[in-house]
Every structure is written in structure tokens, then in C-alpha cells.
């Protein structure tokens, strides 16, 4: 998929664990894992908004478009 989720990079920069992030964002750890591992097929705006709010970043920091597979 040409859309890459750089959530782990931002999480490392913010020094936040998966458990903490899932709790603060309000999604299950399993869903956060799907998102982190690039297995997600879609992201709701509400989830993206919560991620940006908790991680204090922009959507572009989390999502990246890449031409190569």
C-alpha cells in the first residue's frame, strides 16, 4: 500500500507506549497494532484527530505517501 503509517516513529519521538496511546486515544491495543503495522485499510477522521491531539502532531507526520511498494 502506498500510504505508510509512521505512528511508531512519532511514538518513539514522544516517548509514549502503545498501551498509553491506545488508552488516551480511545482505541483498543489490537487496533493500534493494526494501525502501526500498516494493516489498516482506512482511518477515521475522529481517530486521526485523537492521534494528532495526543501526539501533538499533524496528520502528515503520521501518514506518508510513497510511490514505491
Amino acid at each position: 500500500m502506498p500510504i505508510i503509517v509512521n505512528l511508531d516513529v512519532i511514538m518513539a519521538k514522544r516517548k509514549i507506549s502503545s498501551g498509553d496511546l491506545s488508552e488516551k486515544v480511545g482505541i483498543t491495543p489490537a487496533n493500534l497494532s493494526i494501525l502501526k503495522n500498516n494493516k489498516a485499510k482506512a482511518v477515521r477522521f475522529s481517530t486521526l484527530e485523537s492521534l494528532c491531539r495526543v501526539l501533538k502532531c499533524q496528520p502528515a507526520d503520521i501518514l506518508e505517501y510513497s510511490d514505491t511498494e
Partner: protein
Amino acid sequence: MIRIEERLKGGPIMWNCSKSLTLSIFCTRLFAVLLAVGVCIAPMIANWYFGSSPSSQVLHFPFRITIYLCAVPGFILLFCLNTLLKNIRMGNVFVNDNTKMLRIISWSCIAVGIISFGSGFYYASFFLVAVASAFFALIIRVIKNIFEQAIELKSENDFTI
């Protein structure tokens, strides 16, 4: 008299999805038993259906062969139906295994249709069975296609975070 509200709430009638599934599984197994009995008494069925006159004796053997040949896809079909119902009971409705079962059921119907079509050349009534089987196969195939789309949609929904 039972009121409509009571019926909707599952009141005195108490008919629900679980009981409906149990009935379907029971019917599937009953059909399997009937098919097994039919295979065992195939000579008697042929005798009852065509009579024992010397002119009809010639049809007995091919009729039995048709029954035996149709029994194979019949058992496969009933096994798949049973597996499908068990999966549904376990809550696994939109899974690839069910699509596979529906595909096998559809091909089993086609197999019965082909055997019946071939048998139609010695006994014309089998042509009707062939047409009915082909029609069933078509219906099951359409349901299978719907299932495939539903699985795709479910997967998309499951992976939307």
C-alpha cells in the same frame, strides 16, 4: 391469543435464530440419513418406480447407476451444508471457509445436473432434474458471490480504525 408485541419480544413462541439453526442442522442430517437409506435401497426404489415388467427391467440398472452417481455429490453437498451451518452457529458467518463451502455446494449441484442430463437420454424425466439442479447451482453461485462481497466489506470495516 398471542399479541404481536410478545412475538417480537420473543414471548410465548420463543422462536429464535438459534432454534432456526438447530432445525436447519437437524434437517440437513435427516436428509443425509434419507440419502444413505435411498442408496441402500436403490434396487427397491427402481423396482417400485418402474415396476417389475420385463420391458422396464432394462431401466433398472442405469437408474441405480444414476442414483449411486448422484449420491456422491449429494453427500458432499450435505457435508458442506452441515459445515456451513456449524460455522454460522459459532458466529463465523462472513469467513472465507463459508464461501468455499458455497462454491463446493454449487459445483455439487452442477455435478448432479450433468449426471441427470446424461441419464435423461435413457429416461427423459431426468432432464427436468438436470434443469432444476443447474438452477439451484446458479442460485447458490449468486449467494456465493454476495458472500464474497460481504467478506470484503467486513474486512474493510474490521480494518478501519
